């Protein structure tokens, strides 16, 4: 066992096939080894653990979701139901009186609070409003309100109305998609260059690449803005899009690391078969690298989706080209903050990135079984 770390990868390496048509890649269910005794129990236990962990992990989201449906009134009040609800009121003499549960004469009655007082309060019976007000001695604050389930779906509609949601969504999708394409193209090429080719200065250049993210973005903002300003790009999408076509350290580093886990034997075989470097990248490396390609795409998509500072300094003031992250900030102003709208807006914003993950998550299924047809 002791020499496994050295042994096994090499053993694995020779099983990798070459070429698109000759490789038989099996993914997912098919690769499961036959079930054994004990698997069922293990599966149940693990799934149980995962469910518990997930519940804890997502509970804030649930809280946030209930907020998106709550009125500001309910959010600010202590001791209200966890679910979206409104206090039940009774209209009396043009006023909306809250209904309370009042213990009176041995039973609990539902009465409308008419005149609250410290020592005693008067109530109106909603079933008999014409009758004289009922006086109850005690502190009305100790009484329970009557609540009714009332989801405020209009929070979503309000977000839709207040900001130009379709336009912002369109802009955000365009910027995210173009940027993701740029990132994938450039980072794949650059990572391939660093991972598979040896050239003078490679180490230094790679260090330099990684080092570009060591300087906090805050300090390079002004000079960078100046560059784009001189190019006349401020007020356009270009400062957000063009740089994505020139690779970034995070994703190049990630892809390089991944490429480095893939043995070179097949590259070499491809080269012997006469494939050029582009062909090798396309037919050898990429087919084995889908998970990381998807990961990089998702990273950029989410990053671009939620980026606030870039759109703030380059797109603010140009409403027709703004993004959602910027638009949602208008619910979070100094003199205007609405937690329900913020939560509703957030949920509406998350749909597209979640959708993207839904559609691509199968690329992260369990390990490949690579059966070399002709070794």
């Amino acid at each position: 066992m002791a020499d496994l770390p050295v042994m096994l990868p090499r053993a694995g390496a020779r099983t990798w096939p070459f070429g698109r048509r000759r490789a038989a890649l099996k993914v997912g269910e098919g690769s499961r080894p036959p079930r054994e005794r004990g698997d069922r129990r293990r599966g149940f236990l693990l799934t149980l653990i995962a469910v518990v962990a997930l519940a804890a992990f997502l509970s804030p989201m649930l809280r946030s979701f209930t907020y998106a449906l709550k009125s500001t009134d309910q959010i600010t009040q202590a001791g209200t139901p966890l679910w979206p609800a409104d206090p039940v009121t009774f209209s009396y003499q043009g006023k909306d009186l809250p209904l309370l549960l009042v213990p009176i004469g041995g039973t609990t009655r539902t009465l409308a609070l008419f005149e609250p007082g410290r020592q005693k309060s008067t109530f109106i019976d909603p079933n008999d409003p014409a009758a004289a007000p009922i006086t109850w001695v005690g502190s009305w604050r100790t009484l329970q309100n009557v609540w009714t389930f009332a989801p405020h779906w209009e929070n979503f509609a309000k977000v839709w109305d207040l900001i130009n949601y379709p336009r912002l969504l369109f802009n955000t999708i365009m910027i995210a998609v173009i940027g993701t394409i740029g990132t994938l193209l450039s980072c794949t090429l650059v990572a391939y260059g660093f991972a598979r080719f040896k050239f003078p200065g490679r180490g230094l250049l790679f260090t330099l690449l990684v080092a570009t993210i060591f300087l906090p973005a805050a300090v390079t903002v002004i000079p960078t803005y100046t560059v784009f300003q001189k190019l006349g790009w401020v007020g356009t999408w270009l400062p957000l899009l063009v740089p994505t076509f020139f690779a970034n350290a995070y994703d190049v580093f990630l892809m390089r690391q991944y490429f480095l886990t893939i043995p070179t034997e097949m590259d070499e075989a491809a080269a012997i078969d006469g494939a050029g470097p582009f062909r090798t990248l396309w037919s050898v490396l990429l087919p084995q690298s889908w998970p990381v390609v998807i990961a990089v795409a998702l990273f950029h998509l989410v990053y671009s989706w939620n980026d606030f500072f870039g759109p703030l300094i380059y797109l603010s003031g140009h409403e027709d080209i703004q993004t959602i992250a910027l638009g949602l900030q208008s619910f979070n102003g100094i003199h205007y903050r609405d937690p329900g709208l913020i939560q509703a807006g957030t949920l509406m914003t998350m749909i597209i990135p979640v959708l993207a993950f839904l559609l691509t998550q199968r690329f992260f299924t369990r390990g490949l079984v690579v059966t070399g047809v002709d070794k």
Partner: protein
Amino acid sequence: MERRTGRLGALLAVVVLIAVACSSATPSTTPAASPSSAPSTSASADTGASASPAGSPDASSTPLPSAISAGSTGKPGDVEIRWYCCLGTGDAPEQVAVEKQVADAFNAANPGIHLSFQAYPYSGARDALAVQIGSGNGPDIVGPVGIGGANAFHNQWLDLQPLITKNNYDMSQYPKSTVSLYNVGGEGQVGIPFAIYPSVLFYKASLFKEAGLKEPPHTWNSTYTMPDGSTVPWDYDTIRKIGLLLTVDKNGKDATQAGFDPENIVQWGFEPQRDDLRQVGAYWKAGSFVGADGKVQIPDAWSAAWHYFYDGIWKDHMMVTGPQFLNTDFNPNGYPFFTGKVAMSENYLWSTYGVKDAGDDWNMAATPSYQGQTTAAFNADTFRILKATKHPDEAFKVLLYLLQNNDLIKLYGGMPAVPSKQDAFFKSLQADYKQTIDWNVAVQGVAFADVPNFESYVPAYNQTLNLINTFGTKWQATSGLDLDKEISDMKTQMQAIWDAGGN
């Protein structure tokens, strides 16, 4: 199996999206119908390519040209004036719509100048302005901006005096004290009065009634009748006495009663404007950190006010604690009075933006006095021109246009600095409320403004402000502090910042 889950989820998400679209109150055929599509006087070619008529069905197919090519605005040859907004108020969606209409109206009436309105969300406005100024691409006009907000960009503002003289602009229409607000710090006359925000005591009448208390006085420098019939001066001691009675726990016990539970308070007696420790002091007496010798001083009245504030939170429990204040569940709008669970609150007239949330029974009273003298901290907003503008004459023309615009002043909830316009302003405000508000309290309150204003420039303004905020946050979050030592520490650290220099 997995794949099906994925598809199902995707389908679900699409359905949600569509459901949202359809439940929207506006007909979904006009997705681009933002408030800005309200018929404005000039949806004409004047607004340029970037402003495609909102509401057109193909709105989503038009942004690309302007998104990729530098947004062209106005006609070639026009002088471009950029109006940078939202260092304070102005960034709410409804406000932006009006501001754009104002800019459009200006453009329709003033060929040769193109006014471009640019809204930056408040949370990023300061940083974005710093970036623009730092790269030599600053806007021409900034506003509305308060005195403190402008001091954050000390030395960037244009002295308007030469332009005022050149245009023969009548400054005598404004009260002298308001004009002089903009002539401190050695920068010249950097502003012309626009909106002013005197302070008043907001209170919730029903809570007074429930506690069996008389409502606070609506006349300034007045007295108050206690439940026992005695007449006392309307001062901070009185506020404390009734504030305790108005502070109630969940069992209905007030803060003077035995068994009061400070852990479970449901209603608080008093809320001072706490955005800034300087104004907590300035409600007691006007003052400044700058001593006669140019060194740091702590005005005695401010020190007394801070003790009152600190004890009000931690001993009397009549004010919310810092963590409660910052808890967005409890206090989403940043001002506890708006939740309806606070009986009295010192605040500026601009709180009319959200005070409606407090209920239909709020009204205005005079702020209390300290040592026989009443002071009400004062805020003022205006538009300013940046020193670096290339077109000061055109910018000044725009400035005057904005200053005289009645829609804008209503939009920002500011009281017009010109007294003759105030009546109409309050009439329009009253229209938003069911109850009759005693607006006269605010009008009279102008006379009690703090001079010098608490937001006036002090050396190393931004660093000093950061320091006092740090202490202020700590005091609100920590019980059992030796406040005198805290104040003296703050003084020492402030002096060190001033000695090191900088903005």
